[in-house]
């Protein structure tokens, strides 16, 4: 394999991993906020993809306006849906065993899948191109503008999420609620509001991932399970509860999948990925970056 081909494969792996990172981030934010796994995260990514397809004509897709302009709108709408999601899937069940929340998120995921099937049909669809035009060719390496846009957007969103949660007052309140809701309430923070905001942020990131993935890799109503699985593996590898761990795990999965497949086969890559997951669970159950604070899960 030439170094050029290897560079191309690495670029593809990074772009895939960056989009997985957004999915995994949303996943971790919900885990931290309420101590429950949102099993609809994959379907929410799919919903973000279809939302961008539905909105594209209204913002001038036909006129060649880049899909990246849709990103804030898709994130805002998915964020609003996130507040509704919290009131539907979490708040009515918050005093029940965590399995009730698992089941409610699975149910919402299935509803979303069937809704997408009914509205958009079963066929895979291509989302709006993120940037118009072809990418530059650097010494035989084809740099797809779509891939570069995915990488740049994901990097910006991951950094912004980290800054928001670490540096802003709202972010700190969200983290305080995640760590100890009773104590947070005692000092005047409204936990319900912060939890709803956490769902909004998680869904906004899922929506962004859906938009970023939909052009390069297409989207179909049945893709949710795949996205969910990747997020779950990323979080397990990176470390439950750690935002940086989720990003690291997702990037590793993207690179691992493409590199191993390039040198062996897809079947070997898949088998090795799950073998790696098993080894991680056996020898380092906390993941590569174990959680430093008390876990609520």
């Amino acid at each position: 394999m030439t170094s050029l081909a290897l560079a191309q494969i690495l670029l593809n792996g990074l772009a895939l991993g960056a989009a997985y990172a957004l999915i995994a981030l949303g996943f971790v934010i919900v885990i931290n906020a309420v101590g429950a796994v949102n099993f609809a995260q994959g379907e929410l990514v799919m919903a973000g993809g279809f939302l961008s397809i539905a909105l594209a004509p209204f913002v001038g897709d036909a006129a060649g306006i880049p899909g990246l302009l849709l990103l804030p709108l898709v994130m805002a709408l998915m964020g609003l849906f996130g507040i509704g999601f919290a009131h539907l899937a979490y708040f009515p069940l918050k005093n029940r065993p965590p399995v009730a929340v698992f089941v409610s998120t699975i149910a919402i995921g299935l509803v979303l899948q069937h809704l997408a099937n009914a509205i958009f049909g079963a066929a895979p669809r291509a989302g709006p191109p993120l940037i118009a035009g072809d990418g530059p060719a650097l010494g035989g390496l084809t740099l797809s503008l779509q891939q570069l846009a995915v990488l740049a957007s994901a990097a910006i969103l991951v950094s912004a999420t980290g800054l928001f949660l670490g540096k802003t007052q709202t972010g700190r309140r969200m983290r305080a609620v995640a760590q100890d809701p009773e104590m947070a309430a005692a000092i005047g923070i409204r936990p319900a509001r912060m939890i709803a905001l956490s769902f909004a942020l998680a869904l906004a990131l899922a929506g962004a991932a859906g938009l970023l993935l939909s052009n390069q890799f297409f989207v179909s109503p049945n893709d949710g399970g795949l996205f969910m699985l990747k997020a779950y593996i990323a979080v397990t590898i990176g470390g439950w509860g750690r935002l940086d761990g989720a990003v690291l795990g997702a990037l590793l999965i993207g690179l691992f999948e493409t590199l191993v497949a390039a040198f062996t086969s897809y079947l070997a890559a898949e088998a090795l990925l799950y073998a790696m997951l098993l080894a991680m669970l056996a020898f380092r159950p906390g993941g590569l970056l174990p959680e430093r604070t008390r876990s609520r899960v």
Partner: protein
Amino acid sequence: MFLKKTALVVLIFSAIGTARAETLPVLVPITGFLSLEGTAQRNGAVMAVDMLGKELGLETEVTDTGTSPEGAVTALRRALGGAPSAAVASMLGTQMLAMIPVADRAGMPLLTVSGTAKITELGSGNVFRFFPGDSVVKVAHAKYAVEELGAKRPALLYQTTAYGQSGAAHLKKTLAELGAPLVFEEGIDISVKDMLPALTRMQAAEPDILLLHLHSGSTALVIRQARETGNPLPVVAGSAMHQPTTAALLNPEQLKGVCAESASSPVSEQSGPVADFTAAYRKHFGTEPDAFALAQYDGTAMLIAAKKAGAQSADDVRAWLAGNSYDGLAMTYKSDGKGNMAHDAVVVCYDGASRVPAIAKRYENVDGIR
């Protein structure tokens, strides 16, 4: 007395109604990875009944089988409660393999467009396949690549599903017989999104043509990523590529040099009965028809022809389907004794300027059954 007479009249009319009306179960995958093809299958069956079966009082009841064998068997068992004389059964090979023993025990014919070779090799008398099996379309696929495009070093990417493995086996065998054995092959899981690793390793084998036997999304992903990375190899793909929804995922220029095998290509026909079918289908469903829709339309139309010829029970229908030929829109259908009803194939090619392919070659009576 009046009440007795009224009750008798009601009884007679309801008995007549029961005898005339029949609900045809349509048990197909509308959700899951085969939902695109399954939806086309459903549409074809529903359209045939709507257009041709009304005078018989025939109606359809569609059940989503998903993609699991259990889902298909459950749907079939439930359908058997209505004692239908036949059912439209899933095009997914693994589901068909699970449904066949159940249908055999009940003695009910299954009409399908499944391409998996094995479903007609189990010795069941209840399977009627209206889509050319791999022994037909994969022969056309390989012949077009070798005889028309001059391929000597073909590479193959196939899906790891039962459909993919069955087609890959037939392609390998036929290519070897034609003196052009594969120089590279790789199975691709339905969940794989990045095709570049396979394309990169394939290039090292220096193939002169790329053959695909993949489902819709994977087909489009391979072609798109190949073209984006400057791979100019000619492509002869499986029937998923001829579907308008697959072509819609690619730019016309990315489709340049791409061909596909199929049983038929309704959107490519500019006039005649198939063009009329295409127009009616668009009006009915608001989408473009594909070969699966047309094949299932023809299959259901043959069932309706059997009923119009007097076949009422499941035994009558099975005997009629097994012993008669039927001139459908796509081709003439006749059982080869195993329930393989379709024996023709076409290869369509895209010109790089449009997403509507042209029929490049017709292969008639490939397996010698007429």
